[in-house]
């Protein structure tokens, strides 16, 4: 991560993961064990809060806490800093996970290319 993305986009067209296509490698490949992501807020809770679809992700429990805090403390709009920070941090971690997934896919593609080149050379 932190690569020169413009250069990579132009020179490594074969191995850069395409956002339009599905990622092709097995999620467990390369990991001894992997935990599933835990969803805390239930579907019923999200329905009652009438969350829009984009916000029904793995950070929804923090968002629900934030909404409750805001409703309880109105009109003090400066009150919910802690809850907002919690939600923001969760979203940040989610984004970092997305970056890591992309990078994993990219490195696996590069590895696949190397393996194929070795097989051909042999």
């Amino acid at each position, binding site marked *: 991560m932190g690569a020169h993305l413009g250069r990579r986009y132009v020179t490594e067209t074969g191995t850069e993961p395409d956002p339009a296509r599905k990622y092709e490698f097995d999620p467990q490949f390369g990991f001894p064990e992997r935990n599933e*992501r835990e969803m805390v807020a239930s579907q019923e809770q999200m329905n009652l809060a009438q969350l829009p679809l984009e916000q029904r992700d793995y950070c929804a429990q923090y968002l629900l806490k934030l909404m409750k805090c805001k409703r309880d403390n109105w009109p003090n709009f400066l009150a919910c800093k802690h809850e907002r920070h919690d939600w923001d941090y969760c979203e940040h971690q989610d984004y970092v996970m997305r970056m890591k997934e992309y990078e994993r896919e990219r490195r696996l593609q590069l590895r696949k290319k190397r393996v194929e080149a070795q097989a051909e050379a042999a």
Partner: protein
Amino acid sequence: LSPQPVNMAGVGFRRWAQALSKGKGSGISALLSGCRAASGASKDGLPGPYPTTPDEKAAAAKKYNMRVEDYEPYPNNGEGYGDYPKLPDRSQHERDPWYQWDHPDLRRNWGEPMHWNFDMFIRNRVDTSPSPVSWSTMCKQLFGFIGFMLFMFYVGEKIPAYQPVAPKQYPYNNLYLERGGDPEKQPEEVKNYEI
């Protein structure tokens, strides 16, 4: 001797009563005035048939208050213009705004020959004044810009720019039920892992 101010309505009424008492006509024609206002066209001021001889042309030009050199009738092809003059298709926007016209709004003097489509060429309607740039330049610039933008959008579809992140992961089988999926059917299993 300055004339004494008189009530013209009273003068008019008195004259009308005198004419009535003289008893020239009968019925309605006795009550009507025998003269018309000067604002309408006189009987020989209306358009006539297409002029063929030079004499007719000169008479027509004089009728329309034009010089014989300037007068040009419409072609005689059955469209019904008669001897009405063919004036250049220039709208009133192109006339001098600073000159003291008799009718400043219409930019026209009294007695001036009116274009056949004068009501179209008034300042609220069709404007024939020259554009700042020629028509071909305007066309080239507009369509060039639109074409360039369409081309760039096409290029953007083929070679998209994106952040180096995987797609966002959603719970409950990618929100199968929330997106309107059939509750009876079994959705496709979507497992999301931490990394």
